[in-house]
């Protein structure tokens, strides 16, 4: 799993050297930013179900045709799966906030997503809409501190850009 520390250790190991001062400084930088992202991760984990529901509702409100026969949300089972997928993306964002990098999203969320959606005939637009709603709805200090919110939104944007 890619994170700041594992990247540094991999590079040091490839060169066969002990962790250098540069490496320690890089870890220090990661640690200094950790408080905000851990706060965001904790708040997101606490409200994960509510955020997922809001995002999904926003998406089906904007694209009601999705619930018509032959569309991606034609029955409750399929609608539930949309909510589940949104929950997965938010959970992966929680992981990214914990490790301080996009590793979890890259490895478990984005790699192969385009091919899967094309095979299943799913539109990615509604996912973008749902996550954009979450991004614009989240605000500081109601949900979390401004710096934490900044970290959270940067990962939301990362997913949005990957799905767009």
């Amino acid at each position, binding site marked *: 799993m890619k*994170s700041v520390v594992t990247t540094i250790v991999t590079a040091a190991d490839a060169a066969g050297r002990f962790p250098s001062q540069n490496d320690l400084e890089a870890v220090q930088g990661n640690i200094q930013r950790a408080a905000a992202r851990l706060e965001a991760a904790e708040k997101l984990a606490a409200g994960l179900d509510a955020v997922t529901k809001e995002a999904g509702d926003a998406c089906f409100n904007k694209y009601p045709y999705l619930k018509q026969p032959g569309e991606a949300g034609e029955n409750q089972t399929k609608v539930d799966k949309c909510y589940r997928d949104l929950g997965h993306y938010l959970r992966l964002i929680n992981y990214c906030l914990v490790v301080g990098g996009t590793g979890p999203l890259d490895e478990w969320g984005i790699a192969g997503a385009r091919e899967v959606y094309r095979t299943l005939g799913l539109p990615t637009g509604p996912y973008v809409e749902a996550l954009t709603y979450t991004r614009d709805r989240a605000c500081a200090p109601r949900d979390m501190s401004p710096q934490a919110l900044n970290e959270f939104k940067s990962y939301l944007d990362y997913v949005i850009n990957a799905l767009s």
Partner: protein
Amino acid sequence: MLDAFSRSVVSADAKTAAVGAGDIAALRQYVAEGNKRLDAVNAITSNASCIVSDAVTGMICENTGLIQAGGNCYPNRRMAACLRDGEIVLRYISYALLAGDASVLDDRCLNGLKETYIALGVPTQSAARAVAIMKASATAHIGETNTPANGGSKFRKMETTQGDCSALVAEAASYFDRVISAVA
């Protein structure tokens, strides 16, 4: 390879759950102790050659057969290989201490090490003893409990802010113990 953060992510993913408050509290502890941890890694890396050479010479002093003909440190070539291995083990322990997780040590150093040593005829008892001496020296440097009496002419104290770093000393010791139990 994992670190303290990705370890909690991987275990949460196995349950398809988000990383919750409990795990995050533990990670906050890692963050709060971050500077201590970097000082501890620095204590190992700055004294690496001293720690390694002292451990290998100590191992030989206790068992001089190693440097007589037929011993496993006998020609310089094999003594050099021994010093190199000591440095490699210490290097992976420094990685594990930096990451706060033993996976890098397990995956890249200990996996198959015992089998390799047995195949090469390296006495694993002696290897374990050298690691035990490295443990004593490294933990003394991290905890700054070394004294001129046990440091001798090479005595050196790390100059860091004084504080309680017993948790880090215990963590570093656990990585050395991991190596010892893997080769013994």
